[in-house]
């Protein structure tokens, strides 16, 4: 796999048409798990985002589905490539929790932003 295709499980880059630039430009796409959270044009900065409330719900629904189907998927992989599966298992045990935290970043970021804005609004109202 080319190293620059996937440098994290939740951030990808691809050439897509930008409505502002009116040309194919490199875009950065952020995923929360399997759900596309946001796309940013790396030329003009135009952002297309998933609705935050909906994203949280969709992410949690998807996470639940992934956790439920994980054993089945692991068994299928183990049957198909037993040696590779066993070889990767120690690294997966260490890295999977970290990658779960990484993929939840867009959600944590949006929650932190909301908390910050709420705090600022309360401050302005003297609360």
């Amino acid at each position, binding site marked *: 796999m*080319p190293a620059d295709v996937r440098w994290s499980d939740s951030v990808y880059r691809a050439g897509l048409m930008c409505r502002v630039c009116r040309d194919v430009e490199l875009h950065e796409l952020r995923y929360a798990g399997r759900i596309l959270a946001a796309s940013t044009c790396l030329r003009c900065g135009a952002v297309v985002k998933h609705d935050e409330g909906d994203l949280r719900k969709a992410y949690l629904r998807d996470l639940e589905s992934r956790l439920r189907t994980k054993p089945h998927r692991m068994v299928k992989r183990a049957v198909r490539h037993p040696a590779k599966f066993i070889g990767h298992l120690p690294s997966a045990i260490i890295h999977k929790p970290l990658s779960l935290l990484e993929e939840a970043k867009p959600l944590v970021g949006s929650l932190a932003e909301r908390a910050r804005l709420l705090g600022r609004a309360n401050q302005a109202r003297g609360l």
Partner: protein
Amino acid sequence: MKPTGAKVAAVVLAGGGGTRFGGSHNKVYLPLAGRRVVSWSLMAISRVPCIARIVLTVRPEDRGLAEEILDREVPDATVTIIEGGDSRHASEYNALRHLEADVRRGEIDIVVIHDGARPLIAPSLICELIDVAHDVGGAVPGLPISDVAEVDGESRIRDRFKESSLVRVQTPQAFDARLLLAAYTAAAAEGFTGSDTSSCIERFTDAVVKHVPGDERNLKLTYPQDLFLAEQILAASGYSLQ
């Protein structure tokens, strides 16, 4: 799903990627609802019983990634990966040359060509295209265009048409394998490069290419918004378009 008894090969084109950014930023390898974009097409094609061969054209630098994706996401389908060319036309020609011996032996009657950036294809549409191509030589899905205006060289509206005979062409497109091979061989001899498969077959053969009603869901991933929409369409269909 197999009314014609035709022996069919499908070619999925995944060789693009925007020359400015290189093949490694090819949108067909982006994740979409848990799978890569190209995997959705391959899975739909593998559900069509009369399709005996599946060929995926990739850029040389994407081969490793494509192999890993196939192994992980489309393990039950037998897909041959070949290298594409510098253009869509060249990739199609490479795929046809790969299938040439089987076509000449009569082991492939129909070739279906599909753009890997259109992940939302329904197996029923593929079957319909194969049926029509088997009957007349070629079949192309298209959506009617309404509210069309004719504009002159100075951007002035000349005429309006509520209804038009124009259609927005989609893929997959299905063709008689021998005619398609003949058309691309002739095109190579003349140095002709077609904009799509149909344009080449129309120029170099007498085959009739018929229009089949396309599918609104069969969108081509062009803008970032298309990825969000495709995700919603897949979720609404229970992740399996019929």
